[in-house]
Every structure is written in C-alpha cells, then in structure tokens.
C-alpha cells in the first residue's frame, strides 16, 4: 500500500508545469481565444517536448506512461487551459489504439505518428452528439454500439458548433458505418469503448482540477492587489473563507482522482464508480472555484479583460464533456443506493 507518486513522476510534472507556464501563457491563450492565432503552433511546441509520446508504447518510441502519471499531466493541461487536441490524441485516442488488437493494420503506424507529435485524432462517443476537432482530424474513431469504426477525414461530414470555450472546435458528424471501417466489435469493442469513455472522463476530471487550481490562484492574486475600504479584499473574512472553501474542494478531490487513475490503469472492477466519483469531486471543485473566482474579482470577473474568464469558461465547457454531470452522479448513486454491497470501512481498497 503506497498511495504516493514517485519522485520521477512529481519531477516530470514540475518540468511540464514550468514549460507550459512559459509557452502557454494567458497572453498566448488569449490570442487563440480571440482567433488571432490558431492553437496549432502551441500544440506543436508541446508535442515537440515529447508530451504526445507519453502513452505510446516503448516499441513505437514512446514513454509507455500509464493513467496514474497522466492524472498529474491532465491537471497541468487544465491549469494552462491547453486546447483539446493534445489530451484527446495523446492520451485518450492513444489509449484506444493501445487497446486494439495488434492485427489492426495501421495500429503501430499511427502510434508512431502520435509519438512524433501528430495530434490529428478525434473520437466520437455516444455520450455526446459533438466531437472535438473532428473537422481537422485525419483519423476519427467513431462509436456504433459496440463497434469501433476508424474513418478518414474524407469519410465524414462535419458541421461546426461553436462553444462558449472559444478554444474548442466541436462538430456534429455525419458518417456511415460500413464493414471495412470496423476495427473492433462485440465484447472487445465494448470493453475498449468502456475504457475509452473512462479515460476521456478522467482526463476531464484532471483538467477540471487543474482549472480549479488556476482559478483559485488567480483569485488569490487578485484579492491581494485589489483594495476596497482601504484594505486588500483578501483580508476580509468573507473573501478568505470563500477561497478557503475552494482550497478544501481541491484538496479532497486530489486523492479521489489519483485512486480513480490507479483503478483505470489496473483494470479495477470498480473503475466506473471510481472514475465517476473523481469526476464529481473535480467538477464540484471547478464549479466552486469558478463561482468564487468571479465573485472575488467583482465586476472585473464579469469581463473579457481578466484572464480568469478563459479558465472559467473552459471549466464550464469541460464539465459535461465525456459524460455529463448527471450521468457521473448517477453512476455513483446507483452503486451506493441500489446494490446490496456491504460498504464497510475496510472496503475502500480490496481488502481481505
């Protein structure tokens, strides 16, 4: 029993954080949000750092990192509001590719591409009528019940649907399932979709938690600068306590996220529950951080001018991505309320 990260994992996170703080500054993001730049340059830069290779097996030149390490990475991606293609391609789609049977032609090829920085993958899951970055993807994995279909850009028609998060590129998709695009089906397909959904969901949980921390940091910073009634507003107990509550939500969410990651990595039978539980905690942290952030920023929090707004909107948008909050809450509730499992204190981990 050791519920901690290795020093290597923590160091890696720290390195990524420092890199993103420089390269994905709020100013850079603002250019992307305002449409002055597209996210491509930033994403290439990040991929060049090797981040696209994290999940790729060593045979294809990757680092073969698992979900546990990714639970630190996704927080950093959230903290810096890195647009969707990175996490969707390098983590979720890579996970899907890894799970495919080796007999699927192109599997090794595609993994090598990802390793080299290719982020052109999109995934369409029945949890949403929208697919992120479908209009720029060269490869799309689409769900049809238990079947996984791999499609090329020319196999689909996309209709863009703009989001309140201006860095997102969501589309509706029209496509046809034909036998030759099917790369997995039946039990195998079902299992891969379940795992892919869970990986998507936990990638969102991690990002929400990172976003929560960013919103808290921005709010603390602002509360130390802004004065009213001759004092920093951060010295008022009402402000202090609201920010302390955000810190509380973030701290309690962390171990829930990490356990969920560990369960996913190790195919724990309760992965579904653990991941939804993580989603619920991370989602609550982000929602409170957004609300308190806007409140602490006062009227400024309601404007386009402060950086806060980008993180707030991204948190709102991600909240219902890879499963909405109703679905994730329902998964945990069903487990607790409608089963006859004895939820004794000794059952937190598999115990004797």
């Amino acid at each position: 029993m050791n519920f901690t990260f290795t020093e290597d994992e923590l160091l890696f996170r720290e390195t990524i954080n420092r890199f993103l703080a420089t390269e994905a500054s709020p100013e850079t993001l603002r250019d992307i949000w305002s449409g002055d730049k597209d996210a491509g340059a930033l994403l290439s830069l990040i991929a060049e750092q090797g981040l696209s290779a994290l999940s790729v097996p060593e045979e294809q030149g990757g680092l073969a990192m698992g979900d546990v390490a990714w639970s630190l990475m996704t927080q950093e991606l959230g903290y810096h509001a890195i647009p969707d293609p990175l996490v969707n391609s390098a983590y979720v789609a890579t996970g899907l590719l890894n799970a495919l049977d080796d007999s699927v032609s192109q599997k090794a090829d595609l993994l090598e591409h990802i390793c080299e920085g290719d982020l052109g993958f999109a995934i369409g899951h029945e949890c949403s009528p929208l697919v992120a970055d479908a209009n720029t993807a060269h490869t799309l994995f689409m769900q049809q019940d238990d079947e996984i279909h791999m499609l090329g850009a020319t196999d689909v028609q996309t209709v863009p649907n703009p989001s309140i998060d201006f860095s997102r590129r969501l589309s509706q998709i029209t496509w046809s399932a034909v036998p030759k695009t099917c790369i997995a089906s039946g039990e195998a397909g079902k299992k891969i979709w379940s795992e892919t959904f869970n990986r998507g969901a936990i990638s969102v949980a991690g990002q929400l938690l990172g976003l929560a921390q960013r919103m808290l940091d921005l709010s603390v910073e602002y509360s130390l600068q802004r004065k009213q009634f001759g004092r920093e507003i951060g010295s008022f107990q009402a402000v202090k306590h609201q920010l302390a509550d955000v810190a509380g939500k973030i701290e309690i969410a962390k171990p829930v996220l990490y356990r969920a990651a560990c369960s996913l990595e190790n195919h724990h039978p309760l992965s579904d529950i653990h991941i939804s539980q993580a989603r619920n905690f991370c989602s609550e942290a982000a929602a409170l951080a957004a609300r308190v952030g806007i409140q602490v920023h006062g009227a400024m929090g309601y404007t386009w001018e402060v950086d806060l707004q980008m993180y707030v909107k991204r948190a709102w948008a991600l909240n219902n991505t890879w499963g909405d909050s109703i679905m994730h809450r329902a998964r945990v509730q069903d487990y607790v309320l409608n089963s006859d499992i004895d939820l004794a204190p000794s059952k937190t981990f598999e115990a004797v």
Partner: protein
Amino acid sequence: MKLQFSPEQNAFRLEVRQWLAANVPKQKLPTYDTKEGFELHRQWEHKLFEAGFSMVMWPKEYGGRGCDLIDWLIFEEEYYGAGAPGRVNQNGQLLLGSTLLDFGTPEQKAHFLPRMASSEDMWAQAWSEPNAGSDMANISSKATLDGEHYIINGQKTWSTRAIYADWAFGLFRSQPGSERHHGLSFLLVPLNTEGVTIRPIKALDGEEAFAEIFFDDVKVPITNRIGDDGKGWHVAMATAGFERGLLLRSPARFQQPARRLIQLYRDNKAAADRDPAIAVAVSKCWSDAEAYALSAYNTVGRVNNGEKIGAESSLNKIFWSELDLLICQTAMDILGATGELLGSAPLAKEHAYWLDAFLFAQAGPIYAGTNEIQRNIVAERVLGLPKK
C-alpha cells in the same frame, strides 16, 4: 388579508395580456448589447410607450399610467409571462426615474421623464469608479462649479451600454476636500458633450455590455443637478431601496425562468431523473421564485400601508441572485453535453437562452452591491451587529 385581485386588477391584467399577445415580436430580438439589438429594443420601448405600457407606475403627465405597485406586479407577470423583450432603458427608467420623481424640479421632471418613458433619451448609469466598487463612497471624479456650469473630470466604469446611450447620471465630488459621502453632487451628463470619451468593456459573453466613461473638462449646466450641491449621496440613497430593488428585479423576472426550467425538465425527464438532485433543484427553483413573489406582494402591501422598508431589500438581493444562479445552473446540468454551445450553433435550441441567462446570473451576486456587502448591511442594520 385578502389574496384575490379586484375586478379592476383582473381587467388591467387582461388588457396587458391581450396587448402583449398582439405585439410581442414573434422572433426574439438580438441582444441589446449590440448596436443593432439596442436600436430594435429602443423601437420596442417606443411601441410600449405609445400603448401606455412603458412606465405604468409613473404619473400620466410624465408618460406613465398612474398605476400602483400591485398593478405593476401584475404588469410584470404578464410581461415576463409573454416572453417580451428585455427593458433596454431600465437603468434610466428604474434607477434614475424614481430619483427624478422624488427630487427633480418641475422643469427637470417635465423635460426628462417623458423622453425617458418613450426612450427618446437612453440612459446609462455612472456610479462605479475603478476604486469605488463595493466601496461606493470612495468617489474621486470631480465636478468643479464654474458660474452656471460644472466642469467634470474623472472616470466612471461598469456603465451598462454606455456606448449606445444618450445620457449618463452619477455622483461627482463637487466640494473640494470633501470625503466619503459628503460633498458629492448628483449630475446628469449628455454623452455627446465635448470631453466625454467612452471605451467599451467586453463582458463574459464577449459583447460590449459595459463601458468606461472618461470626463475631460466636460461642461454641464447646473440645471442638470438633481438636489442640492454636495447632497448627491442623500439624493441617490433616499429613494426607497426596497422599491428600487423590486423595480429592478420583479418576481416575475424569476418565475418565468423557473417555469421555463420546469418545462426543460419535463421535456428531458428520463435523462434528468437519473440524478435525483435535478428534481430537487427544479422544485426548489419554482418554490423559491414563488416565495420571492409572495414576499414582494407582502412588502408592497406594507408599503401601501405606509410602512418603511429598510435593509430587508438587502435580503431580497441575496435571495434572487442566488436563486437566479440555481435556476441557470440546473438548466445547464439538464442540457448536459450541449449546454456549452453558443446560440449560433446548429444544435442549439433552448441553449442560447440558457447560456445567456447563466452568464448574466453570474453578475447577480456582484452588481448593485456585492452579496458580501448586502450581508454586512443585514448584520449591521437589521441585527444590530457592530461594524468593526
């Protein structure tokens, strides 16, 4: 206690209802935070005015209808129930209007009120300054008396739709060396005057909903002052806080979204019921909105009986702003994966309404005095707890 409407009240309700049914635009107007939308809303206001429904509570001579507060509540119920457009000139009509009625000279009333009722003049408020937000009395914009004029210098901010408005009203420090609430004057400033610069501020939704106003030797006649020189704080505050608060946020303003939320829930019941928290929230939204309506009718009754309503308007402010957040958050939860879509998205149906409402609700606990300030006011003025 009698909780039935009189035949006259019912007749008034039906008249409003019929007029709205015939006149409310079938297509939702574009947001008044854009130039086009602003103009279309101004036209709507004029139509309302022509029908005598612009400012139902004002005296007839100023473009109103002479209704009482109960009639006004009825009007609002019908107005929101019909999904009629937002009131683009409300900052003038509701905030400044009451003040003019109480403190304006006969000439000021005769000049400004009808033009405001018809929205010939569009008004922006100019209360806040960069360092006078929650700390309202920390005003530093100056108005220097010079013969028959004031010369204004300084900066105001968070002035709603000021880039489109004709006039602004606000407090300016007219007595040099004065501090806090003292020495301020309440002035009306035409925004096309030389020396006025307006710089838009983009709101959360990217629209230019607010502006900063810069005053550089702006000259306004002293006849544009309401009340005495140096007594502006008194003028600004004296108009009953309750009435002003209620005017700005009638119960119907929340009952209508609560009703819409219930419809959204009913339309998506199977999905929504997977998480029982949704049903709880939807029910609470309706119940809270109705409680706010009951509270308004009760308070209006007491006002009609001559009772003074004080700091409890702070409680109203806290209540409706939190209710508004709950309504919109619950709707976003029900909308799920598509809730993030902008109105321009092909998949968006109800979405644009809810996303706008959700964004706007975020401002509720902040503007018109943050909820922290409101809780201080309740603690100090209602409960008698010490300031420090």
